[in-house]
C-alpha cells in the first residue's frame, strides 16, 4: 500500500530498472584501444603533474632550476605548523560548507517553485539560468563592482543600516562578498539539474502522493526529496569541488591578487606561494595535502553517503 504520510515511518519509493543486459567485446584489445585516449589524457594532465608535485614536495628548489636540496618532510612540517595555514584551512572548510549549502538550498527552492510555474515558464527559467554562462572572473568582477568600498551600491545600501562594510580591509566582510559571489555563480548549475530531476519524477507517483497526503511540505520531504536524492548527491559532489577549487577566479578578482589580511582558500594559497612567491617545494607540499583531502573526501562520499541514495 502506498503511504505518503506514513506517520513516523519513512516510506521509500524505489523504482527498479530492468536487469542490465550483458554485452561483451569479441577481442580483449578493443576496449583498451577505446579507453586509450581517456587514459592518455588522465596520464598527461593528471598523473604526470601529480607525480611531479609529490616529487618536488620533498625538495627545496630554486625556481630557475639550478639547485635543489632534498629536505624530507620539512615542507610538510613547515606547512602544517604554520599558524596561517591552520587559519586558511579553517576558512576553506567554512567557505566550502556555506557555499555548498547555500547554493544547493537556494537552487532547490527556486527549482521547486519554477517547476510549478505554468505561464511564462521558459522565460522564468532562462532568467535563472543565464548566470551559468558568466565566467568566474567576470562573476568576481561584477561582485567587486557591487562591493567596491568607494562606489559599490551594496556597500552604500548596507551603510544605511549602519554596517560599515570594507571589502579588502575587514576579514569577515571580504569573506561575505566571496561567499555571495560564489553562491550566485553556482545557483544556476544546481537549478538546471534540480529542475530536470524534478521533471523526471513520474506524474503518477506525484498524483498518488497527493491523494495520500494533503500537506505539500510533507509530500516534498517524503516523496519528492528522496526521488531527487541521486541528483542531490551528484550536485553535492559537484558543489564541494566547485567551492574548493573552481572559486579560484572569484577569489582572485575579489583580492586583486593582493591577499593582505583577507581570507583565502587552500587552493588559492597554493597559487600564491607557488606562482606568486616562487616557493615550489612549499606549494607542492600544500597541493599534495590537498590531493589527500580530495582522496579522503571521495572515499567518504562514495562509501557512506551513496549507500543512503537510491538510484532509479
Amino acid at each position: 500500500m502506498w503511504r505518503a504520510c506514513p506517520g513516523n515511518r519513512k516510506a521509500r519509493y524505489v523504482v527498479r530498472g530492468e536487469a542490465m543486459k550483458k554485452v561483451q567485446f569479441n577481442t580483449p584489445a578493443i576496449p583498451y584501444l577505446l579507453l586509450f585516449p581517456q587514459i592518455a589524457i588522465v596520464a598527461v594532465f593528471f598523473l604526470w603533474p601529480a607525480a611531479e608535485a609529490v616529487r618536488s614536495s620533498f625538495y627545496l628548489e630554486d625556481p630557475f632550476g639550478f639547485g635543489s636540496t632534498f629536505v624530507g618532510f620539512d615542507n610538510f612540517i613547515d606547512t602544517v605548523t604554520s599558524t596561517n595555514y591552520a587559519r586558511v584551512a579553517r576558512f576553506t572548510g567554512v567557505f566550502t560548507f556555506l557555499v555548498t549549502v547555500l547554493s544547493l538550498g537556494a537552487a532547490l527552492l527556486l527549482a521547486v517553485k519554477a517547476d510549478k510555474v505554468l505561464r511564462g515558464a521558459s522565460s522564468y527559467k532562462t532568467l535563472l539560468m543565464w548566470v551559468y554562462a558568466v565566467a568566474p572572473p567576470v562573476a568576481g568582477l561584477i561582485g567587486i563592482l557591487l562591493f567596491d568600498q568607494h562606489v559599490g551600491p551594496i556597500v552604500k545600501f548596507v551603510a544605511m543600516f549602519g554596517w560599515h562594510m570594507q571589502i579588502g580591509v575587514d576579514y569577515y566582510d571580504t569573506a561575505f562578498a566571496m561567499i555571495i559571489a560564489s553562491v550566485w555563480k553556482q545557483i544556476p548549475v544546481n537549478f538546471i539539474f534540480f529542475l530536470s530531476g524534478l521533471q523526471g519524477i513520474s506524474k503518477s507517483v506525484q498524483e498518488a502522493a497527493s491523494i495520500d497526503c494533503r500537506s505539500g511540505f510533507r509530500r516534498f520531504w517524503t516523496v519528492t526529496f528522496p526521488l531527487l536524492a541521486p541528483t542531490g548527491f551528484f550536485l553535492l559532489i559537484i558543489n564541494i569541488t566547485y567551492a574548493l577549487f573552481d572559486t579560484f577566479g572569484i577569489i582572485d578578482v575579489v583580492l586583486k591578487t593582493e591577499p593582505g589580511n583577507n581570507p583565502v582558500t587552500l587552493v588559492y594559497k597554493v597559487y600564491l606561494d607557488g606562482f606568486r612567491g616562487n616557493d615550489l617545494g612549499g606549494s607542492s607540499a600544500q597541493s599534495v595535502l590537498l590531493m589527500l583531502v580530495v582522496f579522503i573526501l571521495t572515499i567518504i562520499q562514495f562509501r557512506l553517503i551513496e549507500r543512503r541514495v537510491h538510484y532509479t
Partner: protein
Amino acid sequence: MAYRKTVASLVAAAALMGTSAASYAATDITWWHAMGGKLGEVVNQISTDYNASQDACSLTPVYKGGYEDTLTAGIAAFRAGEQPNIIQVFDAGAATIIGAKGAVEPVEDLLKANGVPFDIEDYIAGVRYFYADSDGKMIGMPFNSSAPILYINDDAMKKAGVEAPKTYEEFEAIAPKLKEAGYIPLVQSHLPWEFVENFKSRHDLQFATNNNGYDGATGTELVFGEPIKNHFTAAKKWLDEGLFGYYGTGWGDNQQPFNEGKVALWIGSSGSFGGIADTVDFPFSATFLPYWDAVEGANTASFIGGAALFAMSGKSDEENKCAASFFEYLTSPEVQYMWHRETGYVPVTEAAYELAKKDGHYERTPAAEVGIQQLSLPAGEWTKGYRMGFYVQIRDVMNRELGKVFSGETSVEDAFATIKADGDKLLSRFAKTIDN
C-alpha cells in the same frame, strides 16, 4: 588568469609577426616587461625608436602582465629553454633572480664584454647598488626607479591654514586641523614599501642581518626595533582618531580617495605623478616621505622601488651584443629624460638628470623632481637597499599582520613578532634553495 594570459600571448604573437617581416637580416631579441597602460605605450615607443636608430638588432617588447606574472613567466620560460633576452624584474623579486646563480648575465659584465663603456659612478647614488652584488658589481640595469613621496592636496592645506609636514611630528600637529577642514589627513598606498622598507631607509635603520641580506642568504633575519613599532602604534592611533585612512592592500583603493579630493596627504610613488596630473582637478604638489625627527640620524635617502632589466643567460653572442646595445641606448641621457618626463620614474643616470634640469623640466613641474631629490639625499649605512629571497611572500606576511593591526585583531608587538617569525622562516627556506 588564464584568459588574460591567452590575450597577452595572442597580442605577443601578433607583435612578433608584425616585426619579423621587417627585419630579416637583423638579430631578433625580446624584452619581457610588466608595464601596462600608459607605461606600456612609452616602452613600445622606446623600442620602436631603438629599432629605427640602428639596423643590426630588432627588439620586440612583450607585455607579460604584472610584476609577479612577468617573473613567473620568465622562470617557466627559462626552465623550458625559451627565456627572453631581457626581462624586467621588480625590487621584491631581485633576490630570486640574482640568487639563482647562472640565470642572468651581470649587466656590468655584459656591457664590458661588448665594448660598451660602463662606470657605476654614472648612475645616481640612490639607484647604484640596489641591484648590485655585495662586491658592488651591477647585476641588473635599474630601469623604472621610483621613490615613495608625499603628495599634497594644496586646497586642503589652504583650507586648514597649514603647511605640508616634513616630519611625522609636524603631521601630528596639523592633522586635527586637516580633519576639521573636512579631509582625511593621511593615506598611504603600500604598507611594506612605504611604511616598512622605506621607513628603514629614511631613518637609516638596519632591516636585516647579513648587511641587509646582501652578504648571503644563509642566516639572514629580519630586524625590527622600537622606532618602527612606535610608528605603527602611532598610525593605529591616527586611524582610530580619524586622522589616517586605510583601505586595504590594493594600491588603487588607497589612491582613489586622494584623486577624489577627500584626502589631504597621500603617500604614493614618484611614478604616480603622471597619472595624478591627468586625473585630479585640484592643485597638488609633492614633498619627501616624512620621517620621525625623534629617531636619531633620520632623513636619509630612500630605497628605490620599481624594477630593473636583467639580461638572461643562455643566449648567443650576437643576441647578447644586441642586449648590450639596447642597454646603452636605454641609458643614454635623451632616452632616460624622455622616460622620466613621460612616466614620472626617476632618470637613472646623473647625465639624464642634468639634461632634465637644463631643459627646464623642473621649473615647469616642480613635483617631478621630488623623487630624484629624495633618492639623492645623504646616504646612510642602511640605505643601499635590501636583498631577501621569497620576499613577495614576506611582503604578503607584512600586509596580513599589519592589516590585522589596523583592524584591531592584533597588537603592534605581536604583529612584528609574527612578521619576524614567518619572515625568518621564509628566509631560511630560501637560503636552502640557493646555498647548496
